[in-house]
Every structure is written in C-alpha cells, then in structure tokens.
C-alpha cells in the first residue's frame, strides 16, 4: 500500500529545477521576444508563449514526480488528461468564436445568391 517511494535526491532535483525555471521565466519576461504575425489581424506574443511553455514544464515536473504520476497507472493519467482536454475544448471553441466574429459571410461561388429574375442554370461566377 505504500506505493512507489521516491528517493529524496529526486525530489531535491525537481525542487531545484522548479526554482531554476522560476528564475528563467522571470528573466525571460524582461527580454523582448517579439511577436509573430498570423494573418492580417492577429499576432502571437512570444513572451506569453515562453511563459506558458515554462509553466507547462514546471507543471509536468510537479505532476510527474511530486504527484507520482510517473508511477501511476494508465487510468489515473487518463483522468488527468481528460481534465486538461476539457479545458482545452472550452478555451479553443470560445476563442475560435471570438477570433472569427468579425469574419463576414463572404459568399463563396457556390453560395452566391442567384439573381432573382433569372434562375441559375449554369454555375455563374460571383458578380460583385
């Protein structure tokens, strides 16, 4: 019932790495990493990306070693992944909406409204 007893030096190593990563994320915050332009209207702030990547690494360290996920059975890991997966669903769908709200319904050729007088017999090119 005791589960896997992790050696103290592993805990110490994790602890030191976490402190180092905290220092790293703080240091990185003071560097201008710039942005990446995505399309015309969006840009990705690389500082935020860096901060989140470091936080994710720290989280995995805590999860794998302090929380013993490394030694846990598959099902426990599945439970944890499910939690984050659902969170990702919530965020991605909501962000997806926010990001595309200003997109107009640009009529693709196949949806171009046919002129009311003449029924479209042939796929007419979209007339501006």
């Amino acid at each position, binding site marked *: 019932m005791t589960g896997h007893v992790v050696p103290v030096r592993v805990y110490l190593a994790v602890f030191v790495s976490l402190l180092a990563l905290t220092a790293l994320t703080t240091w990185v915050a003071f560097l201008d990493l710039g942005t990446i332009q995505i399309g*015309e*209207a*969006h840009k990705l702030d690389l500082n935020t990306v860096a901060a989140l990547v470091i936080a994710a690494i720290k989280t995995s360290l805590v999860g794998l070693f302090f929380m013993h996920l490394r030694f846990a059975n598959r099902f426990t890991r599945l439970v944890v992944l499910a939690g984050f997966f659902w969170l990702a669903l919530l965020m991605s769908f909501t962000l997806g909406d926010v990001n595309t709200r200003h997109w107009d319904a640009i*009529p693709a050729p*196949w*949806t171009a409204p046919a002129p009311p007088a003449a029924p479209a017999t042939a796929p007419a090119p979209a007339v501006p």
Partner: protein
Amino acid sequence: MSMPWLNSALYAALQTLPGIPIAPPRASTVAEGVDELYYFLTAITLFFTITIFTIIFYFMVRYRRRSKEDQPPETVMNLRLELTWTIVPTLLCVVIYVWSASLYFRNSRPPNNAMEVFVVGKQWMWHIQHPEGVREINELHVPVGVPVKLTMTSQDVIHDFYVPAFRIKHDVLPGRYFSIWFQATKTGRFHFFCSQYCGTGHAAMIGWVEVMTADDYAAWLAGGTRGETMTQAGERLFHQYGCSTCHLRDGTGRGPSLEGQFGKPQKLRDGQSPVVDEGFLRRAITQPNSMPIPNYAPVMPSFQGQLNEEQILQLIAYVKSLGEEERKGKSK
C-alpha cells in the same frame, strides 16, 4: 431538393386551416427557403414519430404477455441492423446540415445595394431611424421589393429583433452593431417582437413592420417628420461636440482626418490594423484611448454617456458620408 409547387401548396393549406392560425405570413425573399426546410424537417419528424409509435403499438399488442410462463426467444445483436440505423440517420443529418447551413450562409450577408435603416433597442421600445432623418418608435416603414439592411444596437441590455413574417431574427447587443436584412415580398403590416428577455416590459417591445409600395413609401418619407437627414444630424453633432476642431479635413489637426477612412484598414499602435467599420467608429467615439493611432497623441476624451446610441449612429453616418463624397469625387 427544391419543390416549389409542394412548398406553396403546403403553405396555402396551412393558411386555410379553419380557426387556428398555425403558419406565420410569408413576406420576405428568405421566408420561402426557410419554410421549405421547415416542411422537410416536419416531414422527417412526422415520419419517424409515426413509425416509432406504430411499431411500439403493434409490438405492444402483438407481443403482449399472455402468460407468466412466456419465454421470449433470445435475440442476438444484429450488427447489420445496428449499422443501418446508425448510418442512415447520419446521412440524413448531413443532408439537413448542408442544406440549412448553405441557406443560412447565403441569407446572412446583406446585398450591397441594400437600403439602410438603423435600429436602437432600449428598455422597452424600439427606436428606428431612416437615413433620410425620419424617426419612428415601434414602427418600421419599408418599401416592398427593396433589400433593407437593419443596423442594430442596444442602449442597455440584450434585446432581439424578430420579424416572424420575414423569418429573420438577431440579438441586439449593447456596445456592438449587428446587421440583418430582408427584402419584403408583399405589402401589409407584420409584427416584430423583442425575442430576448429584457425585463419588465419585454412583452411590450412589440411593433409593426409596415411594408408599402415604393410610391407610398416615398410619400410617407416625404410626409414624415421633416428634419435633417442622419448625415446632417451627424454633421451638426460633429461641430456641436467639437469633433471638427481636431479632426480637420486636411489632416493637420490634433486628430486624424476622417475623410475617406470608412471601410479602410486603420493601423493602430499595437500593430493591428482593423477595418474602420461601424463598430470601430463606435469604439473610437466611446473609448478613443483604447485604440491609439500612431503619430497622434491619445488626447481625445471619451464621449461615453454624453451621446446616446442614436446620436452615435448619426455621427457614424456622417463619417461614412465623408468617405462617400471622396469616392464619388474620384469616380467622377
């Protein structure tokens, strides 16, 4: 999928049902297509409901328990049957989806030549203004056969502008502009409703769309309250609130020139360049400093609370007209 004769026949049949009205009038170009899909869905619903009910009743009678010792045979799972009733509904759903989505997509964008009317919802009435300057409350006069685009916003909570006879509806949100459009196909009076709950007087936010012939509409416009057009009202506000002291036409003022800006992308200091549309201008008026422009100091005061939604719309109409004049000049 299109069977116009069936569609009209069903519509006529529903209209003539004695006593109980069960189909709304059909008075816009969109309505027919929506009804067609509606009838198709109704047919599917009736088909499956009746089938399921009939089978259940039949089984209930046919296989009723005759004695306690009944020993029904074991049924093993029938994979072919399972797959059939998984795949058939899936295909049916895909058909409906493609149909409805393309219809919706097609209907969602107003034609470019649509005439514009502005709608402001507030607890608990609808303020409507026409570009010509005529304003009305809980009434909307439009000409028949002309595409009309409603640009809508709310002064307080979320409302929803709904015209059953046109089969159109959209929520009206504070702080944002939404457009819906219709082209009326027959003259007459049709209800419009607020269909997003908005408080005590929600049920009183009802009005009438009055669809008139082109001549009647012109006469109505002429006979309506003669005032300034929206553009003129906007111009008056533009001077009254001192906008004109900074936004000089030649661009030498403390604010950028607004000449010909509408519809073009505007570069902001944070590197984004959104297109100047109604929503952009509204934000520029109410929260100017949230969107600083390069080379101009963020000195513009916010006009939030000083201007009501109708006045903001008038200002926007004016700024828009600044662009139009230039465009017209160029084309000449």
